[in-house]
């Protein structure tokens, strides 16, 4: 996107529901898809006198996210009340963190078009999710005259983490990459599945523009509660030229919250400035401070799973992959795991990388599947790679074998056998084809014998074609030379 004399500045906030067994402040189960209002109690329904108690595992999961983002986990944690009225919030405040959050001052590196960008992380804090509002009927089949919404409190009180970046993100594309790669990281930490359809992960974007090279930030607008990478990028793609247009016409940007309409591709104000929230934060008197022991934090650090950045380096060192290939294979845990299984099953590191990034990834994309859930197992792909290496099947025929293995959900050997895709190395069989080809092309034979050695390539091509791509090129080469040099 060309923004002329302007540059966009984007900051993001990401909310992640943690996959703990129970809620942030009570022992109600955290589940998905259950009937409404079966996981509630006096605490998460805000009955008078009920007291919240912090879930230790939620603190651990949050700290793991903070450590993965290179943040400093603060020794002193205070919970605050964020006050506002909404039917999904039974206490009329959300327990959150304010000026003494869990962790601060981190950074996250992410890839955009082969370039490694760095974004500073302002903070990571803990809070609780709101309940789910179900708007009766919707447009279709709406109950006549219904002015109601339904509230399901199963989700209310689910541990929620907010990750806040500094305004370091230079483009809508970078924003999408940042969020996708950050999501991968959180999934790999094993603290949340980050299921987007279930709204386990949502984000807000703050966006402003400024003259190229300027150090000052312009007035920002906010896009709230988005849960699709594509819409987020589209919304930013629409908002940036809108702001530039306003400024170039001599206008000013209002600090406001915008709604993105994917149907029209435009952003419109959600609420005016006059209604801007004043949350009146104050320390939550129902919760005592949380003092986090640095020794405990170091224990977590020592037991963090391998993270994408470290894995990419390991792939370069251990498998001799290029940085670009290691970046593709190493940045997603599922794909990396699959690749390593292929190598562990005996395939060479380089061909295994090419197959995983090439045919296998194309298959996943075409079928809309996650790595590891494709219709070819790592073990079968490894066998196919080995069959190419030992000459049982040619490289070009192997691609067809792969496609048919998916169709038939079959073993490579059986597929080669069934569809007759094996490489022909049998001299007698190939000699016949070679003789035919030589006999059919006297002009080229003349050229070759006249000293134009490169014509051999033409003959190899003809023999390969006649064999359906299955002839062993080395054997063909030898037979041709013998026939032509005779």
């Amino acid at each position, binding site marked *: 996107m060309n923004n002329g004399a302007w540059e966009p500045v984007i900051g993001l906030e990401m909310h992640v529901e943690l996959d703990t*067994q129970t809620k942030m402040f009570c022992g*109600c*189960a955290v589940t998905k898809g259950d009937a409404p209002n079966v996981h509630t*109690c006096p605490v998460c329904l805000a009955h008078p006198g009920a007291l919240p*108690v912090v879930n230790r*595992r939620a603190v651990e999961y949050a700290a793991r996210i903070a450590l993965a983002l290179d943040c400093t986990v603060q020794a002193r944690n205070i919970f605050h009340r964020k006050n506002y009225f909404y039917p999904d919030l039974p206490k009329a405040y959300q327990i959150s963190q304010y000026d003494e959050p869990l962790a601060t001052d981190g950074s996250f590196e992410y890839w955009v078009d082969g370039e490694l960008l760095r974004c500073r992380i302002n903070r990571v804090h803990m809070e609780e999710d709101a309940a789910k509002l179900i708007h009766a009927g919707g447009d279709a089949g709406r109950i006549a005259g219904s002015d109601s*919404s*339904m509230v399901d409190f199963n989700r209310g009180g689910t541990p929620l983490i907010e990750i806040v970046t500094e305004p370091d993100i230079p483009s809508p594309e970078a924003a999408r990459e940042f969020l996708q790669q950050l999501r991968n990281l959180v999934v790999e930490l094993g603290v949340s599945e980050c299921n987007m359809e279930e709204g386990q992960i949502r984000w807000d974007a703050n966006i402003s523009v400024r003259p190229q090279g300027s150090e000052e930030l312009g007035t920002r607008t906010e896009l709230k509660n988005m849960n699709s990478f594509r819409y987020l990028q589209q919304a930013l793609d629409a908002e940036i030229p809108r702001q530039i247009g306003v400024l170039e016409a001599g206008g000013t940007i209002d600090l406001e919250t915008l709604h993105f309409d994917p149907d029209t591709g435009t952003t419109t104000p959600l609420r005016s400035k006059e209604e801007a929230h004043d949350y009146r934060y104050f320390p939550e008197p129902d919760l005592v401070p949380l003092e986090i022991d640095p020794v405990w934090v170091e224990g977590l650090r020592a037991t963090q799973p391998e993270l994408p950045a470290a894995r990419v380096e390991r792939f370069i060192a251990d498998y001799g992959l290029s940085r670009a290939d290691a970046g593709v294979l190493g940045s997603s845990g599922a794909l990396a795991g699959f690749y390593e299984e292929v190598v562990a099953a005996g395939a060479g590191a380089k061909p295994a990388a090419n197959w995983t990034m090439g045919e296998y990834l194309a298959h996943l994309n075409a079928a809309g599947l996650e790595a590891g859930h494709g219709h070819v197992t790592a073990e079968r792909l490894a066998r196919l790679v080995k069959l190419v290496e030992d000459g049982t099947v040619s490289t070009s025929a192997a691609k067809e074998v792969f496609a048919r293995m998916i169709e038939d959900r079959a073993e490579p050997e059986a597929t080669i056998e069934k569809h007759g895709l094996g490489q022909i190395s049998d001299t007698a069989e190939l000699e016949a084809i070679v003789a035919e080809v030589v006999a059919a092309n006297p002009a080229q034979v003349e050229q070759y014998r006249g000293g134009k050695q490169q014509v051999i390539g033409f003959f190899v091509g003809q023999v390969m074609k006649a064999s359906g791509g299955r002839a062993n090129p080395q054997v063909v080469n030898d037979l041709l030379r013998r026939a032509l040099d005779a």
Partner: protein
Amino acid sequence: MISEDDVRYVAKLARLRIEQDEATRMTGELAKILAHIDKMSELDLAAVPPTAHVLDVVNVTREDKERPSLPREEALRNAPAVSDECFRVPRMG
């Protein structure tokens, strides 16, 4: 010094409707409370760490272990309106 406008603003945030005589009275009362709190500014408290809680206790946490929830009928019993196994509330904007 707190103004009557401040009082009306806070009342609005708290969704309280207050009459004129109440606004006048509360402006006076809140001013007294704030003046009382301001007394503390007269002390040199630079060396005293901020207090976040009245109890001298930290780290009250629990294990991530499920405990029984309320039966739905029980949870919905105090709701002013119920439908579809949910609390029914006025539709928001």
